[in-house]
């Protein structure tokens, strides 16, 4: 459904020196800086698959999503979404995709959601009966029946995001791009949107690309992730393989019989990187090849009541990857 080959995008950004002198100078001579937002990335996404794009700010996630939704022209490379070149933006293509941007409202702020949906019914030429049935289902699932007649600008962020989701899915798109759909939402709203998306994915099996800074979004929704750093893919594969491929550490957790002494702390520093905990417990980040040695040293030297060895948190590993390239 989505095929991307060697896609690159360079932006030219105007740079100005600070202060009045810089402003005057830029009146006569403009300085430009080139930024490579995407560097020859390739990707395939099939029906019913949801791919999580993760990376630090400026890694190129949103640029990729915008290019695939037809908003941006790439500098080089090719892409096909449902057999169409996205940036040619023909109506047949646009009728089958949806883009939801958590940071940018797609709906008309002065209108109530119900009016926006009516307009979208005409724009997408959705038959009335199908429109009413789909709207009813989506409104029920997201629990926003009471807010349909309220102006979009008067809704809370969570309610607005739910309306954006309804607006994007009314025409039952076959490809959905979600750019940070839960940004700024409280935990309850985040959870309800995640549950809704999972349900929608199961029922309609669209291809979805999701970008998010919240690891919980990625862990709950995506079986496959793509980690981006400086416009490149650092990893593209199952979420479950991240640990075996990239985790360089394990965490040793132990309950001690008495609070940690200075000698105990010195020992932990020698064995690895102690993580903050309270009371008579320790958590130690240890390189994988030294886990056995560190565990036996702890058992021998400290009064251990209970001990466990865990894998590092997936979110931490991913964050490490997009900060340094690997954990």
């Amino acid at each position, binding site marked *: 459904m989505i095929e991307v080959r060697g896609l690159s995008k360079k932006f030219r950004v105007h740079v100005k020196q600070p202060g009045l002198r810089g402003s005057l100078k830029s009146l006569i001579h403009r300085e430009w800086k080139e930024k490579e937002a995407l560097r020859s990335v390739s990707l395939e996404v099939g029906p019913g698959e949801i791919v999580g794009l993760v990376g630090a700010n400026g890694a190129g996630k949103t640029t990729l999503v*915008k290019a695939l939704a037809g908003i941006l*022209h790439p500098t080089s490379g090719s892409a096909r979404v449902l057999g169409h070149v996205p940036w040619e933006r023909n*109506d047949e293509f646009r009728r089958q995709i949806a883009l939801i941007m958590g940071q940018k409202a797609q709906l008309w702020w*002065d209108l109530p959601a119900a009016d926006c949906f009516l307009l979208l019914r005409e*724009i997408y*030429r959705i038959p009335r009966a199908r429109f009413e049935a789909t709207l009813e289902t989506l409104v029920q699932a997201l629990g926003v029946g009471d807010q349909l007649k309220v102006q979009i600008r008067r809704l809370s962020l969570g309610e607005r995001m739910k309306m954006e989701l309804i607006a994007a899915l009314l025409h039952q798109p076959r490809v959905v791009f979600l750019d940070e759909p839960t940004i700024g939402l409280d935990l309850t709203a985040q959870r309800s949107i995640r549950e809704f998306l999972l349900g929608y994915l199961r029922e309609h099996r669209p291809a979805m690309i999701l970008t998010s800074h919240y690891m919980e979004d990625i862990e709950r929704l995506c079986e496959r992730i793509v980690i981006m750093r400086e416009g490149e893919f650092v990893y593209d594969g199952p979420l479950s393989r991240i640990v075996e491929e990239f985790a360089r550490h394990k965490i040793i957790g132990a309950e001690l019989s008495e609070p940690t002494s200075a000698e105990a702390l010195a020992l932990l520093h020698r064995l690895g990187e102690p993580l903050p905990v309270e009371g008579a417990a320790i958590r130690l980040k240890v390189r994988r090849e030294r886990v056995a040695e560190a565990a036996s040293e702890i058992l021998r030297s400290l009064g251990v009541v209970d001990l466990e060895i865990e894998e590092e948190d997936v979110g931490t590993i991913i964050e490490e990857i997009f900060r340094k390239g690997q954990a």
Partner: protein
Amino acid sequence: MNQERGAWAFQVFSMELRKLFAYRADFWLGFSGSVLSTLGISYFLWASVFEARQASEIGGYGFHAMMLYYLAVAMVTKVVQAQEMGLVSQEIYQGTLNRYLVYPVPFFAFKFVENLAHAALFALQLPLALGLFAALFGLPPDHGVSSASVLGGVAAAFLACYLYFALGVLIELLAFWADNVWSLLVMLRITVSLLGGALLPLSVFPEELRAALSWLPFESLLSFPTRALLGELGPEEWGRHLGILLIWSFVTSVAIRLVWRRGLREYAGVGI
């Protein structure tokens, strides 16, 4: 099928009108404010001009007819200029153009339909203003105003509205490259007002200047619909102005298409 395809346009038009009608006070205050201020300004301005020149006619207009022209051109200008300036460039600067690129609907048609709703609202005010003028001062002795001339004038104003919209859009598309296009839009508005006959009837201008302007779009944008409204035009002038409007509209639309395609290559879809 065609009707179904264009159904979104009716929805946009109706929605925009509903938004405008929602502000009832704005409608009546805007109407009475513009009529009264136009009448007041034109009365004092032209009374002094006529008195200073000791003339009974200027550019073929007597004092009474000049007042009527001044009111008519002010109301026609509202129809032609319709919505406020700068909305397209704002969509580009703020990145809200994204939604129009994703929705299967032509962006400029969408924007023009919104603009048309504003033009329609002002077109409703036009006969009201003429009626008010007739009630207060009566129509000038050799006037040509009739229901047919009003209909023709309104139709001409709508055609001019498209061209004015297209000229504005062409400038606004420079927002793909320039940080601010506002000053260019103000220049367009001033040029159209001055050379289109909104400040003075063009019959007052020197013959050479009028000849030079005759193939430019300005006269057809404001003076043409105003004079059509007042029943001052014969079939030949109607034909010439319609031709100019159509040719300039075509040329501007082609230019928009080219600039739009080029601009989208620069578009980053970011903004506040």
